[in-house]
């Protein structure tokens, strides 16, 4: 499943996606989160990504982040989120990483 996020993942943006991400996390095992149009990522936004990612992985699934901008990727790396949810900038490598074994 491809989830396309758009805009700012600030406190308001995080609240807007929380429920939908949790529903996806409870029902899908391979999720690509397209970050190309995410212009801001704060700590509330991180939570909205990390909690469903842990749920998906806990069910034996996989989740990847695709093409975050430079500053968003810096937040992902500083927080260590990239160790939990791999970041890919090539679509094919992102799709390959989602192959369930």
């Amino acid at each position, binding site marked *: 499943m491809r989830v396309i996020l758009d805009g700012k993942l*600030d406190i*308001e943006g995080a609240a807007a996606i929380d429920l939908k991400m949790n529903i996806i996390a409870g029902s899908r095992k391979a999720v690509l989160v397209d970050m190309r149009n995410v212009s801001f*990522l*704060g*700590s509330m936004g991180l939570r909205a990504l990390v909690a469903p990612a842990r749920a998906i992985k806990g069910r034996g699934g996989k989740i990847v982040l695709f093409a975050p901008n430079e500053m968003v990727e*810096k*937040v992902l790396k500083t*927080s*260590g989120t990239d160790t939990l949810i791999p970041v890919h900038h090539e679509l094919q490598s992102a799709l390959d990483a989602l192959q369930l074994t």
Partner: protein
Amino acid sequence: MTGNGTGQMQDQLALRSRLSDMTQLSPWIESLATRHAIPGNVQFAIELCLEEVVSNVIRHGYAGAEDCSVLVSFAMPRESYFEFVVDDEAQPFNPLEAPELGALSPDEETRVGGQGIRLVRQFADAVEYQPKASGNRLSMGFSAAK
């Protein structure tokens, strides 16, 4: 806004201790960025740090009390340097002395947060804490001249 010129420039945003009030932060920062030509990556860092610090004051400092004061002040003490000060009247708490949690790791099964201080230290160029007679003051500086 009060004053003109770099050294005198100051602007303030008064919030109440409700998470819903935090929606005022982003348009305020955007307005400052437009008026003072703050570069996009610096604006990103400012918003990241203010969201973290103000939400911590509201959620932890005031522990759910909804009608307390959070005052955010902006100053430009010199060219290409932007300073934000967050004043509250909460219990004394120095976030710079709080133990910093490690980065998130795939081995932990439950933790989803705790990255706030790490992010502020990385994205602000200067962070300073001052206790007040009643409350706390956290100052953060951001340089566009990197």
